[in-house]
């Protein structure tokens, strides 16, 4: 199951152990739309990044403010090194709720990771999809373009336009290969043979409305936000154009006056800094809308994927029914 990755000459390999740890972490601590996070450890081998281990960030409440996360991480890594486990920090993981992970927080932390550790990656684990029978684990990195923009910290419409950033090319998904030792593989085969058929029936579940409903709800919320954002941007544009008009008028008036003055033999009025008179309105940052667009895109992908599967299942069920009848 080796996979050669085209990006950066690196490929991300993950061990089953890591996956299981992440799943366990979520099972234990995450519920509902709460998110669990943790640190990925591993090392770069040739053009691949191998993630060999991970540990969770402990959940801590707001009241124990003196909890030092950095300290905790260092402590953990030191301890792991003592037991001879890879201790290089290569990224982080996060669970997600119906695929809603494209947020500002994720962007910021991934930016700082990638800024500090070039090869770092964020693993997104979707527990709901996993519960439906297919493991959903995705690795993302920020595209170099986005990295540039983030470094500049300029999210004005012009900057984004110049950087040629769109929601499609904000994140790049990196293929993951889960690779285990042969012994583990053997055991997995063994287990598969032993497990009863009923255990694998989630995949065939026909109940779809709940998942779809939730996704739609979330999608709707995002669309609303998007809408608002656009309205804001629209207002901005209108303000800009209005000001432009005023500026123009002012300049014309000034010009006429100067002509008159010249004809009267008076010295022309000094040219004032027109930008001082008309302060351009603050352009709204566009990063949010980009993120929302990205999120909408993710939702759409999810829904599409889900519906495709479900349709297949429905047809199958129908066929089965016909056959039985």
């Amino acid at each position, binding site marked *: 199951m080796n996979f050669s990755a085209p990006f950066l000459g690196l490929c991300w390999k993950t061990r089953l152990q890591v996956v299981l740890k992440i799943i366990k972490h979520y099972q234990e601590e995450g519920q509902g739309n709460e998110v669990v996070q943790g640190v990925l450890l591993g090392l770069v081998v040739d053009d691949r990044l191998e993630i060999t281990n991970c540990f969770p960030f402990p959940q801590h409440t707001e009241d124990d403010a003196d909890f030092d996360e950095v300290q905790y991480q260092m402590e953990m890594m030191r301890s792991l090194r003592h037991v001879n486990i890879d201790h290089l920090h290569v990224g982080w993981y996060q669970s997600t709720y119906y695929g809603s992970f494209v947020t500002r927080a994720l962007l910021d932390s991934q930016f700082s990771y990638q800024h500090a550790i070039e090869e770092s990656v964020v693993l997104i684990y979707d527990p709901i999809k996993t519960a439906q029978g297919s493991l959903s684990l995705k690795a993302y990195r920020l595209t170099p373009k986005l990295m540039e923009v983030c470094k500049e910290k300029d999210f004005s419409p012009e900057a984004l336009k110049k950087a040629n950033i769109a929601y499609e090319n904000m994140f790049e998904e990196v293929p993951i290969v889960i690779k285990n030792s042969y012994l583990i593989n053997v055991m997995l085969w063994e287990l598969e043979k032993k497990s009863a058929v009923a255990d694998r029936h989630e995949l065939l579940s026909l109940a779809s*409305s709940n998942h779809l409903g939730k996704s739609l709800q979330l999608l*709707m919320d995002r669309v609303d936000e998007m809408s608002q954002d*656009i309205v804001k941007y*629209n207002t901005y*544009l*209108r303000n800009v154009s209005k000001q432009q008009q005023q500026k123009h008028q002012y300049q014309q008036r000034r010009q006429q006056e100067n002509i008159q003055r010249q004809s009267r033999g008076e010295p022309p009025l000094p040219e004032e800094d027109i930008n001082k008179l008309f302060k351009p309105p603050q352009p709204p940052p566009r990063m949010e809308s980009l993120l929302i667009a990205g999120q909408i895109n993710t939702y759409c992908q999810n829904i599409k994927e889900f519906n495709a599967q479900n349709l297949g299942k429905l047809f199958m069920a129908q066929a089965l029914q016909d056959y039985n009848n």
Partner: protein
Amino acid sequence: MSKMGVKPREFGLKPRELGVKKPQFGVKPREFGVGTCVCFSAQCPAGCLCRCPCPCRCPCRCRCPCPCPCRCRCRCPPVAVAAMSRFFTTGSDSESESSASGDETAPKAAGGPYSKPLLLSEDEEDTKRVVRSARDKRYEELTNLIRSIRNAMKIRDVSRCLEEFELLGRAWAKAKGVVDREGVPRFYLRILADLEDYLNELWEDKEGKKKMNKNNAKALSSLRQKLRKYNRDYEGQIAAYRQNPEQSDEDEEKSRRDSEGSGSSSGAEDDAGNFLKRRERDEPRSRYKESESEPESESDEDWGDSASESDSESDEDDGKFTSLASKFLKKDEERRGAERRREEKAKKKLERKSRREEEEEEEEGGEWEKVKGGVPLIKEKPKMFAKGTEITVGLVMKKLNEILQARGKKGTDRAAQIELLQHLVAVAHEHQLGVPLELKIKFNIVASLYDYNPNLAAYMKAELWQRCLGCIEELLELLFAHPEIFVGENVLEESENLSNPEQPFRVRGCVLTLVERMDEEFTKIMQNTDPHSQEYVEHLKDEARVCGIIGRLQRYLQAKGSPEELCRVYLLRVLHTYYKFDYAAARRRQVRPRPQVSPGPQVSPGPQVSPGPQVSPDPQEKEKEDEEKEKQEEEEEEEDSEALMERLCRFVYAKDRTDRIRTCAILCHIYHHALHSRWYRARDLMLMSHLQDNIQHADPPVQILYNRTMVQLGICAFRQGLIKDAHNALLDIQSSGRAKELLGQGLLLRSLQERNAEQEKVEKRRQVPFHMHVNLELLECVYLVAAMLLEIPYMAAHEFDARRRMISKQFHHQLRVGERQPLLGPPESMREHVVAASKAMKTGDWRRCHRFVVNEKMNGKVWDLFPEADQVRAMLVRKIQEESLRTYLFTYSSVYDSISMETLAAMFELDLPTVHGIISKMIINEELMASLDQPTATVMMHRTEPTATQNLALQLAEKLGNLVENNERVLDQRQGAYGGYFRDQKDGGYRKGDGYLRRGGFRQERGNY
């Protein structure tokens, strides 16, 4: 005397004095007669030759502490006797004199706290001593301070001077009472003048000033300023003093004596006195100079001078002493004696002064003299009738006028005034001066009773209130007994006829105003009494009396009042009737006597102690004492308050010309209708009156009444099962969350910035008395239950509607509060009950819902407060069943293909036709996509409602449409073209989308079933 009840009061700062005055009021009557001395004009019966002028100081009978020669070695100058006698010439004999003086001191005494010791001193001997020593103390204090100032001046310690001067100022303020009586003492003027000179001198002395240390320099300037300011008050006196520093002393003394004016005084004696005094004055000066022997500076000498003067000042009164030696020997004693004498002189002077002041106060302009002559006579009136002086109407009137003139003035003792007036009535009565006069005086008594409280916020004391009621009752009695007397507020003072029997009697005064004011006072008393106390119940018992008075007044005015007056009295009557539930009528209406839920089931009562039931029968009992005919009439009215209200209000509607009375009457009428469950009449009246449109222009009390009426209307609708009407009527009041405030049943706890003390007072005055309150919990419960019955089916019907509107925000708020609870226990409060019931109803479980709404707790809290509690409960059950059925159908129709109506009927314990009716209605309103299958009596579901996912998809489509629209606007901006190509197309497409939505079964427009 126009409108006695509405006299403006300008003395806002009085209340503190009231407390001081009151004990005097009690003491005063005892005061004269007992300890009165009668001997001062004649020889002392004890045999002493002092002919002491002081009426109360004599050793003879009055236990006078004065040390007369016989027993007490009195040193009062004989001249004084003459002076006194001249002063009192007007008095024919001693007794009348003293009583007169006693008489007048009483009202006077209220003038200020300073006159208090004076009054007391006349009162009892013991206190007298105290007073004198106080006076001594004051002067001693002053002289001590002056001495230390002089010392400080001597050593040029200006800062010390300043300190002492400040102390002196304070001591002076304390001694003001004494000073007021005696005038500014010389020594005080002297120190002021000297100090001024001294300071000026220091000020001029530039070098000395430079040498002075900083403290002193600072003190100097500040003292100089202070003194300048201070001296301004005494400018004249100081100037006089400066002119003649020595002579002025005795001049003053002389003039004082002269003014006391002795015709018989012996000039020789006087001369001798003066001579002696002068000698004395010279003497001590030399003495002091010797003793001091400090030849420092001129100024020092000056001080010595003044010091001696100050001494001589105190000595000068000893003029009567012939022997210098004895004077030196007995100096202390003498001084005391002198001071004592001075005090008594001062007292007399003050008396005189006060009398003159009073006269001045009482009279203005030309009338002055006329009444002055009459003053003593009239003063004696109460006492004199025994002696046979002829008492005429004119005299009494004069006296009355005199008393009334003092009314509203600052120094008037209002309690004493009432007392005097009452006395006057007694006199008038005794002498049979005629009913009109009595009436007139009684009018004034009531008016002064109202005046007793200086400001509007204070309420009458219980005792006064009782007196006031009694007075008004007597007044009405008189009016009824003498219907020939014309009473009106329009009668001019001149055209009053109190005594002439040939012409019709005319008395000025307005009973109606008095009664209105009485009603106001009653409200005030109720507002200011703790509603949970026994006291409140006691006060409330007076309601019967108030009602009785109003009823009698009404009868009186019906006979002779104008329509306007009738309107006013009718309104009073209406205001006392509208909020009471007529139990008698309700009982009569129900043919079979239903077991009354009588303990406290007035609709508007707050607590169980509410003495509502006591109130209504009481007037009846009261009336029984009246005449037979009236009683019958009264009972008829009393029998059916509905008829009564109808009659009164109709009259007001027809005759009233002021808008306010009519508005109030209408509102009360509606309230009364609503209270007695005559919903349609109440509603029609409300709608016909168009009050909703213009009530915001009314004054706050009327607005409060309007709110009360609306609330009552809503509750009435609820009792009738008209849930929607009930909800609409209550919505405005309840949604604000300030029901308490809007109904005038209490102030909200708001921060002080929002309203200042003044506003708070005004708001407090608007509060409705507790026994008229609408129970707020009942109100809220009714509202919430009504909201529940409307909202739950609506919510079920529009579960997936994005644009779902809330019918009742408050109800939703309660639901949310309920949801937020982490642990849901069994409901405790009324709100929790309603929330729990709502939850049960949501699932169509009407039994649980019913159990939550109607149970023991809720019965106690709410439902039992209704007069027809059982009916209401039955109505509630029925409504709950129906609405639960609807909710059930809305919620679970998607699960069914068809439902048998019989099953539904069994489930909700409704009969088949009702179920049929409800479902048919739902189908007609297109709330339920179904059809009825008649033969099998089943409901066939059509399933045209979109599923949840479809709904979501629809919503999403709508939102995306919005998004696209917004996005295109951005595009338009870019292109600079507004409403271009895309717009038309999109609009078209969009409408279609909307249409689809509508066809999909969204009927929020027609959603109101």
